[in-house]
């Protein structure tokens, strides 16, 4: 028992590099003030990738339909702002609750399957929601997306064209969610998830209920993804059908793998690299941008099996 609590204490302690990293996230305010709206997009994507990391990196559930929860959160926040009130924090909570409920409902199905059937089912649910939102155009605006509402401010800070409030808002929410995720990962529950990832049949034998744990993790991930979606709605004041698309599910998977899954910071690093590179290279022809992403993916799989963070970690170990 003594050893176990010591293990958790050591794991939970903040590494100096982590503190430096979070301080660096404040830099865009001073260094690149003209790129603040990009910075808030990055923070939102990072949160989305973090939520996928919880189920993919830690619990080992491969999902090709994670955008479903992002979209549910985005549409919840958008509909609330359009038809009722534009106060964002309550929208955030409601989006979290609703996407969590959808995630909880789906988790009962998802945890029963593995391998290809799992990938196909998550993809199928994502596509179903996408089609449903597309068809219910009276509610969601269909392919045009949800428009005609404005989220003016959060806690009295106005969302202006410079994106200062938007970035501060996204960053604070990302940081709070990160704290929650970090706490979960370093708890006994987080350890049990990793055990299930490594061997799903052995864990129940030592008293950890695999499916109940996986359901819980899946629901938590859905909540975080929903929050990310709501953030996007609040900072852009529109919801597009693209928030539910297969492309977004694939993108976030790419981002997480690029950064390194199962490392907590992987999704954030991946989001920074991916979004900045897309901003710089995509330009007028977004379809050519995918050439480079494809090349990067092939290279990561062939040469950096644990993503960029994994590669750096290996280098660091070698040098010691």
């Amino acid at each position, binding site marked *: 028992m003594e050893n176990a609590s010591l293990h958790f204490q050591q794991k939970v302690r903040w590494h100096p590099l982590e503190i430096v990293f979070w301080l660096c996230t404040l830099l865009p305010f001073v260094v690149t003030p003209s790129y603040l709206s990009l910075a808030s997009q990055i923070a939102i994507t990072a949160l989305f990738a973090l939520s996928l990391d919880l189920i993919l990196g830690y619990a080992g559930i491969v999902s090709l339909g994670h955008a479903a929860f992002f979209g549910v959160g985005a549409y919840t926040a958008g509909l609330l702002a359009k038809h009722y009130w534009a106060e964002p924090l309550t929208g955030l909570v409601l989006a979290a609750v609703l996407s969590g409920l959808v995630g909880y409902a789906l988790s009962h*199905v998802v945890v029963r*399957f593995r391998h290809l059937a799992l990938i*196909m089912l998550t993809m*199928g649910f994502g596509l179903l929601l996408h*089609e449903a939102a597309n*068809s219910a155009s009276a509610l969601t605006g269909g392919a045009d997306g949800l428009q005609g509402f404005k989220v003016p401010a959060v806690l009295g800070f106005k969302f202006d064209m410079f994106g200062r409030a938007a970035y501060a808002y996204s960053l604070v929410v990302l940081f709070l969610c990160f704290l929650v995720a970090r706490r979960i990962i370093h708890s006994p529950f987080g350890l049990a998830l990793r055990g299930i990832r490594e061997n799903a049949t052995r864990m129940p034998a030592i008293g950890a209920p695999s499916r109940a744990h996986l359901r819980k993790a899946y629901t938590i991930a859905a909540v975080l993804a929903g929050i990310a979606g709501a953030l996007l709605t609040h900072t852009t004041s529109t919801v597009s059908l693209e928030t539910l698309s297969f492309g977004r599910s694939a993108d976030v998977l790419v981002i997480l793998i690029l950064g390194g899954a199962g490392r907590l910071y992987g999704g954030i690093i991946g989001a920074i690299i991916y979004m900045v590179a897309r901003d710089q290279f995509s330009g007028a022809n977004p379809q*050519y941008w995918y050439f480079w992403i494809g090349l990067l993916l092939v290279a990561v*799989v*062939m040469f950096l099996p644990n993503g960029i963070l994994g590669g750096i970690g290996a280098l660091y170990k070698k040098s010691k």
Partner: protein
Amino acid sequence: MLSSLAGVLFDGFAYGMLLFLLSVGLSVTLGMMNFVNLAHCSFAMVGGYATLSLMTKSGWPFLATLPMAFVAAALVSIVLERTLYRRLYRASDLDQCLLTIGIVFISVAAYAWFYTTEQQSIRVPDWLQGSAHVAGMSFASYRMFLIVVGLAVTALLILFLEKTRFGARVRAAVDNQRMARGLGIDVDRAFMFTFALGGGLAGLGGALSIQVVGLDPTFALAYLVYVLIVVAVGGLGSIGGSFAAAVVLGISDMAGKYYFPWLGAFLIYLVMVGLLMWRPQGLFGKR
């Protein structure tokens, strides 16, 4: 009502044949060799663009380009198998997924660069246009052609795999690698050949589908979902299963478009999710 039902069945069956050609190769490589090749539809795209180029640039007749579509896609799959895929045969599902998604992205961008993103079309010979009228119903000639080709390919494929010596070697190699190696079968070559065959058939499907659905660089992604549905629902590695699943999918997609157009693609996704929840190993899956 009855004639529209027959029309839907006929069109759906023809569409199913197309889906079968596109997906049978993936069913084999995914089911028997355990390789999640999401770039399968990129092979189909290679075949489609080969036909397009030969017809519009070199003026070949449509039928003559079909074997070339097969060969082009088979060659590309051999190159990829030799250079990239074989190194990941033992890697995790996720790694294989990611590598092949990367290849899809590259192929989409590359074809957009060379052929623009516009939808391309070809002109099939006159005898494939128009339609035949039987008992007050009309059957499009091209769709009949699709059905004939699809059935012929299925028959050839089964004959080849079940009756020839090389087919027996391929089956042995994919069923039990170690045992086959022990018996002196060149498993590497069998795998390469299987990949080439699957890729080639996809290429043929891609070439045949231009007339029906057009061709643009997003083909590799747009049809991936359909192909995966066929494979997952049909059951991995089962040619008969893929055939049945392709026909079911083709007909339900056509019926959905005809009777419930407002549902869009909702219906086939629902069919897929339902079937997978009912039988996760597919309709004819063994494992």
